């Protein structure tokens, strides 16, 4: 996994309280990792914090899996 993926995984494990081996590329935050709508808002905030990037609301709505987050951050994070 890339450095970005590792950092994303760490955040997801910490915020959603899930086992690390469940945080795979295809894992959907809500359907697979037990997040609710507020959790996803907070996850996006945590990604912004960790990667020092602003994720606009319309972009945040497209981040529904671990892979979505990794791809977005690899592309947009400094």
């Amino acid at each position, binding site marked *: 996994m890339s450095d970005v993926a590792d950092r994303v995984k760490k955040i997801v494990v*910490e915020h*959603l*309280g899930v086992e690390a081996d469940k945080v795979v590329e295809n894992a959907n935050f809500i359907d697979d990792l037990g997040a609710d709508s*507020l959790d996803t*808002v*907070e996850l996006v*905030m945590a990604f*912004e*914090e960790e990667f020092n990037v*602003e994720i606009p609301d319309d972009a945040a709505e497209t981040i529904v899996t671990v892979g979505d987050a990794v791809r977005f951050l690899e592309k947009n994070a400094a």
Partner: protein
Amino acid sequence: MRRVVVTGLGMVTPLGSGVDATWSRLVEGQSGAGKITDFQVDDLACQIACQIPRGDGTDGTFNADEWMEPKEQRKVDPFIVYAMAASSQALRDSGWEPKTYEEQCATGVLIGSGIGGIGGIYEASATLIERGPRRISPFFIPGRLINLAGGYVSIEHGLKGPNHAVVTACSTGSHAIGDAARLIALGDADVMVAGGTESPVNRLSIAGFAACRALSTGYNDTPEKASRPYDKDRDGFVMGEGAGIVVLEEYEHAKARGAKIYAEVIGYGLSGDAYHITSPSEDGDGAYRCMAAALKRAAIDVSEIDYVNAHGTSTPLGDELELKAVERIVGNAAGKLSMSSTKSAIGHLLGAAGAVEAIFSILAIRDGIVPPTINLDNPSVETAIDLVPKQAKRKEINVALSNSFGFGGTNASLILRRVS
């Protein structure tokens, strides 16, 4: 009206997590006070508080992880975590686990707090100012609202009955138990999880209560001596944190399932001072009237009261006014009455105080032990009432009254009686 009994007890206090740890240390005369080390206090007039002993859960320490998942704890202020712990303890103690839809709908929650998530509001305000609105968590609001203590408890245990919360400053815990008892008496619920919770040990709360001149400031180097109700050298209350929760149940419902019954809630009285925002009325009339209202509801003679758990916060004004009001109401029976302030040991838990103290009153009935008013070296006034200085004493207690008085002039008294 239907009879209401207490069938479960739970608490987290500065003396420990759980009823047994707290009660045994209280009876031994221990103090839960100490120097505040979690945040800057060198510029605060009051630098002490009664804080929950944290640890791995053994030896009466509080391990939050036992009661709420770490990822959930992160979203809420500690008052919600304390309520979750005390509620789970109380429900476990009662043996009541509502499983059917009907049982769930007949079981409600009424948990209050004086100031709820003030610590989290303080931190989020700083975030907003320093870093802007995009850094405010979506859990900021739901993790700070007072009724979310009850909200979380209802979700955890599947309680679908009345879901209510009380906010009456330092009377909150008593009002919560009294109001919940009435919901059962009137048939709105068969079982209620009721009480109060508070997490006020933070820089903003201490600064605020110190500004009201309500806190002890003269004992920063000897914290365990600071809370000294009725003593001539008292100089204000010591902030405490924690939660007290009871399971209240309709009498026949409790009997039918063979539940252990601690006591019956026979009286509940309320009054308002209509006098001052922080000071009690000078004639103690508000306190007198709320005790009188509770006695009327209980339909007992005042001489039947064996023990009063006083509001007794250790403030110069309040203690004596309450004592005078109690003397006035008990009249000639003063000589046989014991009245102690357990705030001497655990400090003032604000919205949790009334609930924790109602539980102490129930335990006094159960064990025939009156908990002491520690640090009472030299009473500031003479009274025929036994203020139980420094040491617990054995005494048969059949009826106990617990008083709570709050900012805004809001008063509540509960009367509890042994069920034979």
